[in-house]
């Protein structure tokens, strides 16, 4: 019998964004999004937590090689998002509003197909220590 263990790796990235729906009027944008709609954007220190799930390998004692997970988080997410203006520089957010919810989904979509060594269980994105979104790949 092999044991299923959940492993979480944390990383930080800093980025700017604004919330704006071009289908809304200026007033609607202001009403729905408040100061998150300020036209030149604002920034956060985001914290990304990636949780993978798997059996503990009997030879290595690992669920996943942490170095590989860390490299994947860098190549797929952090290198692209860190120190960027999400709305202007990240293709997914040309059309999608870069809320914490959507950032969690986008991080999942970037990581899941590349993660072969273990099963992606959860992506958690903290926008601030008081606000975070979890995505488990649920439809």
């Amino acid at each position, binding site marked *: 019998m092999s044991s299923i263990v959940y492993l979480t790796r944390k990383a930080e990235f800093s980025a700017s964004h604004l*919330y704006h*729906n071009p*289908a*809304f009027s200026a007033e609607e944008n202001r009403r*729905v*999004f*408040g100061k998150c709609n300020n036209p030149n954007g604002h920034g956060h220190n985001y914290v990304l937590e990636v949780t993978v799930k798997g059996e503990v390998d009997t030879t290595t004692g690992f669920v996943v090689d942490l170095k590989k997970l860390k490299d994947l988080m860098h190549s797929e997410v952090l290198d692209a998002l860190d120190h960027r203006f999400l709305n202007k520089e990240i293709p997914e957010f040309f059309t*999608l*509003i*870069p*809320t*914490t*919810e*959507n950032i*969690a*989904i986008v991080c999942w979509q970037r990581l899941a197909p590349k993660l072969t060594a273990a099963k992606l269980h959860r992506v958690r994105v903290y926008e601030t*220590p*008081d*606000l*975070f*979104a*979890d*995505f*488990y790949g*649920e*439809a």
Partner: protein
Amino acid sequence: MKVYLTRRYAFSASHRLHNGAFTEDENRATYGKCNNPYGHGHNYFIEITVSGAVDPQTGMVCNLADLDGWVRENILERYDHQDLNHLTEFAKKVPTTENLCVEIYELLHRGFKKAHLDRVRIEETMMNSFEYSGESQR
């Protein structure tokens, strides 16, 4: 796609764990220094988790302004800088953080209609936390 959104709030309050049906010794044995007669306080942190599909118009599961406003008015205003034992909900119930967690969940469940409530988690101190998701057992 279903996303879970968690927001964290803080409030400070005092309480005393004491059951009127217990003897003095029983209260002492059950609650220890939490039974000290004049009560004591905590900086509580509440985490409220709501879940649902992301609205394509807003990118949100729940507008935080709605949640923050509701929580401020109905939870923080009610509990911050209060003695929990003096509140009506704790007139007959010991204000443990378990009971407080259920009360806050029920308040949200009854009153906050703008998103599906998933869970209430309260940290009483850095070392203790309590969670309630509306589960019950017969």
